[in-house]
């Protein structure tokens, strides 16, 4: 899936405790379909906000954002929900597994949201759990897993519905180096096996080296 941003600015509105905060300023960029792109920047530079906008989780305050040929900034909420449900996979720094669902159910969740049948779900989940190396953990709950395992479950959940865009926000930020490497290898090989576009935010040079190219961001602006 091709991603294009035209003069995108994003401002978080004021609250009781804080004034409005401008996190992205006039960002324009284009990511070709099938690319593995790394977004690099320091903490607070706007990486996560950029990923949220690309993932249709948030809307830009101004500017235009295209996923494929569709301008998402003008789509209604229901259409954004469907877009996320069908075409986007998310990997988070803190895994964000649902603690009340077991590994199988966490991975299966996007498929059941898409209304797939039980047989198809069973087959696909087993296949994905095999792929991420956790078939023996299917009935375990997130609280019973190690950090690296949790992230592999999260990766399984992100790819189960074969999205055309995978967004990974600091996927190794909460892992030790060995598990971090394993996760990066997994993401890279999954990208190579599919035609999905991958956008990964990180501030680690080691992680950044896995991408096809790097977009640098600082103080809400693309610098390189």
């Amino acid at each position, binding site marked *: 899936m091709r991603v294009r941003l035209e003069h995108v600015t994003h401002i978080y509105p004021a*609250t*009781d405790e804080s004034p409005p905060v401008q996190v992205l300023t006039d960002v324009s960029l284009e990511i070709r379909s099938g690319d593995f792109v790394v977004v690099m920047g320091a903490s607070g530079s706007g990486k996560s906000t950029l990923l*949220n906008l690309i*993932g249709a*989780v*948030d809307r830009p305050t101004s500017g235009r954002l295209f996923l494929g040929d569709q301008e998402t900034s003008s789509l209604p*909420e*229901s259409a954004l*929900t*469907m877009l*996320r*449900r*069908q075409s986007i996979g*998310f990997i*988070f720094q803190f895994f*964000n597994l*649902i*603690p*009340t*669902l077991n590994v199988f*159910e966490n991975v*299966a*969740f*996007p498929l*059941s*949201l*898409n209304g797939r049948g039980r047989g198809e779900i069973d087959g696909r989940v087993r296949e994905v759990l095999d792929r991420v190396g956790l078939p023996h953990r299917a009935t375990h709950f997130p609280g019973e897993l190690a950090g690296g395992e949790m992230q592999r479950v999260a990766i399984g*959940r992100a790819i189960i519905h074969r999205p055309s865009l995978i967004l990974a926000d600091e996927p190794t930020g909460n892992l030790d180096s060995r598990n971090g490497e394993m996760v990066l290898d997994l993401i890279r090989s999954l990208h190579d096996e599919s035609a999905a576009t991958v956008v990964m935010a990180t501030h680690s040079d080691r992680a950044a080296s896995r991408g096809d190219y790097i977009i640098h961001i600082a103080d809400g602006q693309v610098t390189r």
Partner: protein
Amino acid sequence: MSLLRALVLRPMVREKIRTTLTVLGIAVGVAVVVAIALSNQSALRAFRESVDAVAGRANYQIASDVGIDENLLIALQPLWSRGLRFAPVIDIDGMVEASQTPIRILGVDLLSDIHFRDYRYASILSGTSAGGAPAPSPARYLDLFRTDSIIVPATFAAEHRLRLGSPLALSVLGHQTTMIVRGILEPRGPATAFNGSIGIVDIAAAQRQFGMLGQLTRVDLIVPGEEVRSAIARLLPPNARLERPSRRNERVEKMLRAFRVNLFALAGVALLVGMFLVYNTVLISILRRRKDVGVLMTLGASPGQIFAAFLAEGLLFGAAGSVIGIFLGDALAFLILRLIGRTINALYVTSEPQAIVLTPTIALVGAAVGTLLSLIAAIQPSVEAAHVRPSILIRTGLQQRVGRARRSVLAISAVLCFAAAAAVCRLPPVDGISIAGYLAVLLVVAGFSLLSPLIVTVVSSALRKPMRAAWGMVGQLASASIPASLRRTSIACAALALATGMMVAVALMVGSFRETVRVWVDQTVSSDLWLRPAKGLSNADIALFPASIVDDLRRVPFIAAVDPIRGRDVTYGDSIIAVGSGDFDVVGRYGNLPMVTPRSSQPALQDALRRKGVFVSESFALKFHKRVGDSVELPTTRGVERFPITGVYRDYSNDRGVVVMDRGLFIRAFQDDKINTVVLYLKKGVAPEEARKKLEAAFGPKYHAFAVLNREIRAEVMKIFDQTFVITYALLAVAVIVAVLGIVNTLAALILERSRELALLRIAA
């Protein structure tokens, strides 16, 4: 389904304490409503079914409050050929002397009454009679018509250890009579009325034994059509009315309506508090799982799905709480029935409550009330959860502070609620029920609930310094944590405030009313002794003295004055009122009637004696818009008579309304010289205790009289008063318990949520 499992089902199972507390809160609220509905139903069903059983197949009745001349039957005779069937009836209350318990006496024409009522003497005719008596011969059957014969249900016979031929001593309308049990009925038809406490006698025997020669209580009719009905209406004497048998039920139900509505309103407090609990629980669910909600929405769960999931949580809590509540209510109804049964008997009608029966309708109402209210309570937090952007939900931190702008909106809404309450409470009651009053209370509750975030914030900041001074850092942290979790703490506080507020308000109201009643009783009950024909029976008609007791008492040397009291229920328009009588001359000289108008009772009593006038109670004056100078029309034996009102007095003994007249006027109007109670004033220097002993010795054997001291009467009145309000306190206590459950729930959630912070504090020693 996976969404429901993730957000609702698994958390409900995992968080057992929270789930149990919430379900219990709803269950208690629903239980109270179900218990009140069941006990009300039971208390009144007994009365309703008794009226139906005694009415039999009659579709109309000629009824009168003052008796009907039996010559009316001769006037009805020509209509027999047009299909009319009629049965004369004497239907009166009496008392079983041995057990001092009430019995209903039904005097009917035993031969012709089979058109109207089913009497099964099968137990006798089959030769297997209750009590093991031999099968009756035809001559024995004729024995039923003897003037001392009585037929009782098998259940009554068993309860009172009676068999065929047993004597049964009764006190009916002031007549002490011993009847012989000559028939035993199977429990069906009229034998089931009044819980089986009924005796059937031949009408001629009833007239002779109970001093009702030539008189009937009513005539039961099977009217074939409108034409015959109109013909009957033309034959009616002026003091009689033609009505459906169910009319009496309707009047009694109307009389009890305000009492029942009040009970439901009090039960509503517990339910309202339960609603707060559900609101708080769903809110806590959402706040605790907001990150999960954000993740699920990011993955493609729609706002509608999130809304439905949390709504389902409210629904599940409601359904589970309702089911438990229905069964809990069924068990609780027994206790409530004892409480309200006493009040209904003391203040309204004699009705022996029947067994509690959980009907599908009441179960359905309980389930609907619990489930719907829980659903309603869950709507607002569910909507809120569904409309927050996933990116905000995923971010760390609870973000649950109530913003300043929102706080001011809440404050303005609260002021509007209070203003609306002030306006609404001025509206008049609808059909005797203060709907506007209940609405005003709801608005005040809503107002304070809206204000609770502001109140909690202000109180917390005011307490910060004193708490720090008292408990150091711990105190400061505690006072700071409450506004930090304002949404849930303010709801829990509002729920507890609602419950305790209601408790305090009712306690103040009842306390103030109690004091008023105490002063009223002290003023009203100024006599030294009361003579009553039965021990412990407060209902007027059950046991009576004959008029002759007055002359006997006047001959007692230590008695200064005798005031014979008689009262009866009279139909007044669509209501049932009480008409009482006493000796106005004695009341004027010895009594101290608390007056509304005029200030002093003396001239008004004299005026009443001179003009054949009456006093009315304050509740009568308010209910029927009457005042001194107006008149009141009552059905008497001489037709409908008009009595001028010469005084309005204070009376807290009943809320139906009372008309009081001098005994002479009462006897002339109702041809009734019986006496319910004799009020006695002793000569100076006579000790009441001594007088009581002497009176019981002299009047006990002859009149079955019991003497009661002034202080005992006062204590009895206050006891009835306190019994009436026990249920009020019990219901509000339940509301407080539910609210405390809410506080426990909130604190448990806060502790779980802040376990990391608490651990840090422990690490910091």
